């Protein structure tokens, strides 16, 4: 009896917002949270004036509750509808008109949302993928879509501010700064297209390696001049535009990532930490009611079984670990330390391999020609890819010895792969830097004349851009090659040849984590190379689009649905954190190139400055005096110290707010517990008194 009344109370207090429940869409999560937030604040109270089976017509705001969200049988709803129709309308004409307009507006909003969903890039494909393969695989494709859009918008930025003006002003503009330095003449000589006969296949080789006809083109840094165009009210300096576009591009990417991370984090925080309600979540929300077909159902059931078993296994391991004797613990920890050192050793071996390969390839590049030259060009990329493939494989075998619990194993494997990828890219960049600046010693014989290694690198920025271009291209080629040479044959073998081995190996499973790391790696390469190769974002956009379709084809043709799931909410956040790490690596390279290294004297828009940044102060002095003073003021202490203190104040306020919310959630939860205990006590009392 009391339970029936309870239901009435609590239901009437749980408000809703019309049209708020679109599933799986991040935008609607905010509305959903709003509605749940309201329900937490409205503590249910007992309303003795309830009539038969009906909740009160109006909720807190005095608006009639929508009938469709009433949890009653249709007959009751129809009866209510009739009774409402018969009731004398209490509302004035203006109110009725307002409500009518509101209804029409809501219908329009629903329609607009439908259309937007229809227009969203690859919306239907993503839904299909999510339905067939689950949230983890879908989150990979969502991430890929985000990167495609990011790259495309960055390309538009670059095109608008650097490439098109360069194109237009190339003939018109004058040289911005003339050389007044007593630089050696030999440093300014740069011949990317040596005269002579060009063999026909050279064009293809040039396309693959970025040399030849591609080197002195809009692709690379070396083509841009320090042109300047000045009119009455309009002046445009290419070097300044180049620099500021690169900096703004980085800032823009950071803002996009952080915004997206914010919305992903909101979900993670709202669910209050996924481990807290693990089992009940799996049991009550694990079953997908939209699952069709016998095989899909069986698969889903196996999936749930696996998840529950994994969680139970973790519990068992935890209990087991807690019950180990001291000696056993010591043995286990020393074994883990040994394995860690082994993994470290493997990584260091890979890094040395990359270092030597890069050095060798750079040395050989100037001496060979034809196909051999191509091989040497791609040697670093090959070594990096081989390292990124072999070392995680070995680490997986090592992880079996370490015997961590399943979730920790996954996290450790991911961390190792991330570190490997980023540090191998870092080693490549370090080797290049090493060669270009003669290990940083300006007084070294080769670098003394021009400030950088002129002989091997007449235009070092273009060379760095070429390396990044090659890495990008090679990554794409490897992916397509894997698709054609490994995945399709594997599927054909497994499907048509039934033997023990093929049963054991089975169809491919789409591994989300390593694919995501591949994406983050490519994006980091693009960021690193964007300063030196302005068209790289466009190439990357095309590459990611091709990759999307390739992965989609392989997913639907060759892969079996995953048996092990990946928690999609936290993983979206994790992808973005790793992407942010890549961004930081690229920004270090950017800052170093802009501020420290001497630009080449033979090419590029910065050839007459000591470093790239010095064009900014020089152009600053040509601004009107008022602007100059304003900008100086912005940089002075009188402005930055108050700004800094204000932002720390805001940060502390937000942190305090965050901790207060956590505390209030805990308090409310305890209050809930207390209330239900009070209820039980009162029920018992009523029972006793009525006897």
């Amino acid at each position: 009896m009391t339970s029936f009344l309870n239901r009435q109370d609590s239901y009437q207090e749980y408000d809703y917002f019309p049209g708020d429940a679109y599933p799986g869409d991040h935008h609607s999560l905010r509305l959903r949270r709003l509605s749940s937030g309201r329900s937490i604040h409205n503590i249910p109270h007992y309303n003795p004036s309830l009539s038969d089976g009906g909740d009160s017509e109006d909720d807190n705001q005095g608006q009639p509750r929508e009938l469709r969200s009433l949890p009653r049988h249709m007959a009751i709803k129809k009866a209510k509808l009739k009774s409402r129709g018969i009731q004398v309308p209490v509302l004035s004409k203006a109110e009725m008109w307002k409500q009518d307009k509101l209804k029409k507006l809501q219908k329009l909003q629903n329609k607009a949302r439908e259309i937007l969903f229809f227009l969203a890039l690859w919306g239907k494909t993503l839904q299909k993928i999510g339905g067939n393969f689950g949230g983890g695989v879908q989150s990979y494709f969502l991430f890929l879509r985000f990167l495609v859009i990011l790259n495309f918008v960055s390309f538009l930025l670059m095109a608008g501010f650097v490439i098109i003006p360069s194109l237009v002003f190339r003939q018109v503009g004058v040289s911005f700064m003339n050389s007044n330095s007593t630089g050696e003449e030999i440093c300014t000589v740069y011949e990317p297209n040596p005269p002579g006969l060009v063999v026909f296949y050279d064009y293809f080789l040039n396309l693959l390696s970025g040399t030849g006809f591609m080197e002195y083109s809009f692709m690379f840094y070396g083509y841009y001049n320090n042109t300047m165009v000045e009119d009455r009210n309009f002046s445009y300096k290419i070097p300044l535009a180049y620099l500021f576009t690169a900096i703004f591009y980085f800032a823009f990417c950071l803002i996009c990532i952080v915004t997206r991370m914010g919305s992903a984090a909101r979900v993670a925080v709202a669910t209050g930490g996924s481990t807290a309600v693990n089992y009940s979540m799996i049991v009550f929300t694990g079953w997908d009611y939209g699952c069709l077909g016998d095989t899909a159902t069986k698969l889903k059931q196996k999936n749930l079984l696996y998840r529950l078993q994994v969680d139970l296994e973790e519990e068992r391991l935890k209990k087991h670990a807690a019950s180990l004797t001291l000696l056993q613990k010591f043995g286990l920890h020393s074994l883990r330390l040994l394995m860690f050192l082994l993994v470290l050793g493997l990584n260091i071996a890979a890094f040395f391999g990359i270092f030597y390969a890069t050095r060798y390839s750079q040395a050989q590049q100037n001496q060979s020609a034809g196909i051999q030259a191509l091989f040497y060009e791609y040697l670093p990329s090959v070594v990096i890819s081989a390292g990124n493939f072999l070392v995680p494989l070995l680490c997986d075998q090592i992880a079996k010895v370490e015997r961590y619990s399943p979730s920790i194993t996954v996290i450790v494997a991911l961390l190792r792969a991330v570190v490997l990828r980023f540090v191998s890219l870092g080693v490549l960049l370090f080797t290049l830097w090493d060669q270009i600046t003669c290990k940083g010693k300006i007084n070294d014989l080769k670098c003394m004349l021009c400030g950088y290694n002129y002989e091997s690198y007449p235009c070092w920025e273009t060379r760095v851009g070429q390396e990044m271009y090659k890495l990008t291209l090679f990554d794409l080629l490897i992916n397509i090659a894997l698709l054609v040479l490994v995945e399709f044959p594997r599927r054909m073998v497994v499907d048509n040849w039934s033997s023990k081995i093929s049963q054991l190996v089975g169809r491919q499973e789409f591994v989300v984590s390593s694919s995501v790391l591949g994406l983050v790696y490519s994006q980091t390469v693009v960021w690193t190379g964007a300063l030196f190769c302005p068209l790289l974002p466009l190439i990357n956009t095309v590459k990611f689009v091709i990759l999307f379709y390739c992965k989609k084809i392989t997913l639907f043709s060759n892969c079996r649905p995953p048996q092990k799931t990946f928690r999609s909410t936290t993983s979206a956040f994790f992808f973005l954190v790793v992407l942010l790490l890549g961004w930081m690596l690229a920004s270090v390279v950017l800052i170093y190139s802009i501020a420290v290294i001497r630009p080449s004297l033979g090419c590029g828009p910065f050839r007459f400055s000591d470093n790239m940044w010095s064009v900014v102060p020089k152009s600053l002095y040509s601004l009107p005096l008022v602007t100059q003073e304003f900008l100086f003021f912005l940089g002075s202490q009188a402005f930055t110290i108050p700004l800094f203190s204000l932002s720390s104040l805001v940060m502390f306020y937000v942190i305090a707010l965050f901790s207060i919310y956590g505390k209030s959630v805990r308090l409310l939860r305890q209050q809930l517990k207390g209330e239900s205990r009070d209820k039980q006590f009162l029920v018992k009392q009523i029972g006793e008194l009525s006897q």
Partner: protein
Amino acid sequence: MGNKQSIFTAQQLDAYQDCTYFTRKEILRLFYRYRDLAPQLVPLDYTKQPDVKLPYELIGSMPELKDNPFRQRIAEVFSEDGEGNMSLDDFLDMFSVLSEMAPRDLKAYYAFKIYDFNNDDFICKSDLEKTLNKLTRSELTEDEVKMVCEKVMDEADLDNDGRLSLEDFQHMIVRAPDFLSTFHIRI
């Protein structure tokens, strides 16, 4: 489309539109799906509100439901007689709650009723065990089932009475972001 259909009166269609999350088109489409289950039982003219109920066996043979391990409970919860025999109203009601646009609280209410096998308005241990067995095809061992039930009770039972009430259930659902997308049948 216009008012060319003669199955329902205009008022009936409006009433259905107000009581469910479907548009006119979808209601008519659902009517034809309902009729396809048993064309000889369901008349084409609903203006006189005929009292037609399809037995559970026909409802449970729909492609959207036939592989769902909870199909019997779903039919029992949404039917008026509690046995799974559904009229058109119950049919529309069921798919309205399971559609994309139903709000979370409504879905949580009905999900609670579905998992409450003995209809006592609480999810007790035996209800949980039955749910688990349906979810995993009874492939968990007895010990594992017991452990999982204990864990679920620990996590979700806020008032410590050994069973889950509607509030406990709804409180737990609030923290599940994918509940709305899993408790959804597309038709």
